[in-house]
């Protein structure tokens, strides 16, 4: 899965009205709340077989923070 595909999936999770870039902040008009976090965790689990323990919404500030966990 390349970054373009990942950004498309994240755009869906974040209900983004426009295409995302890594610099896009996780703030309105994006939806970044406990439910979006749940969807993001599921995305990591099923696409990358990765569990991310002990995180909360405030641990992520931009799309780049979300992308980071898809590369580790």
């Amino acid at each position, binding site marked *: 899965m390349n970054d373009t595909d990942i950004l498309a999936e994240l755009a869906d999770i974040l209900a983004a009205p426009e295409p995302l870039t890594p610099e896009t902040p996780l703030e309105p008009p994006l939806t970044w709340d406990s439910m979006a976090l749940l969807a993001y965790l*599921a995305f990591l689990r099923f696409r990358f077989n990765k569990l991310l323990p002990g995180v909360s919404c405030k641990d992520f500030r931009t799309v780049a923070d979300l992308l980071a966990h898809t590369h580790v």
Partner: protein
Amino acid sequence: MNQTFHGLRLEAVSCVVPDYRTTIEDYAARFGKDIAERYSKVVGIQQTFNAKPGTKVTDLVRMAADPLLEEHRAEIDVLLHVTQTPHLDAPPESCLLQRYLGLGEHVIALDINQGCAGFMVALQTAAHFLLHPSVRHVLICGGDVLSNRVDENDHATAFMFSDVGFAALVGRGDDDWAFANGTAGSEAISLPHDGTFKMDGTDVFNFTVSKVPEQILSLRTPEVDCLLLHQSNAFIMRQIGRLCGFAPEQVPMNIADYGNASSASIPLLLCDLAQNHGWRGKRTAILSGYGCGLTWVSARIPLDFDSTHFSFSIYVT
């Protein structure tokens, strides 16, 4: 630990639900339409049923258990009461229920405080008791009144719980029940004394998509045709079903109609399927309860929707 018990039968299950509803529209009015739409899509709850203030779990249990006891009252040797919201710290509500339900003084009465896994913990405990020939029937009962123990300003938990009472009668028969259980010493889900329900969503999610599917798969055999999960969250249940290789139609949900009924969730699903969704005949199911503790208990159980008596009623508050 995996254990198989022989010669058991689920004889009857009964549930009672109060008639006072809170709806997703009520939730939207409080937290906004956008959050409500997302909550509805992810968590899947459209309405919950709430007991009126002052209702005790024992009130719910009495209504649920009475229909089951008409024929078997004198044959109950063990009473397992599952709740995390007793109205007193002591005495145990199971002791009070011995009297309320008119059971004999010889009854072994125990409270089980295991939250959403509680019914499954009790089912496994009942199977253990029935290993002894002196035990004829085990009555499992319980429920929770949790709708008044949530933070009304927390959109993640304010609209989650229904207050449901249940009773189930377990006796001897021809069925084999296979169990797997686990617990992990976590406070990720907690109900502080005199406080409100708290949940660490990340830890709970990671738990439910790792430990729970692993356990379910350890019990899966070719004859298993449905997965009956604790109704926690539609999104999470879909992930568990997917990880375990079940088709969506094999993982029935009623969280939209009843929310999360805590320890009563699986009994409520069984009664709802039988009474409101036309389930008939024999099925081999895996039942799985998971929740605070973190505790997870699953069982592979043959179900007979024709011979087991399932009863579901809504009572006027």
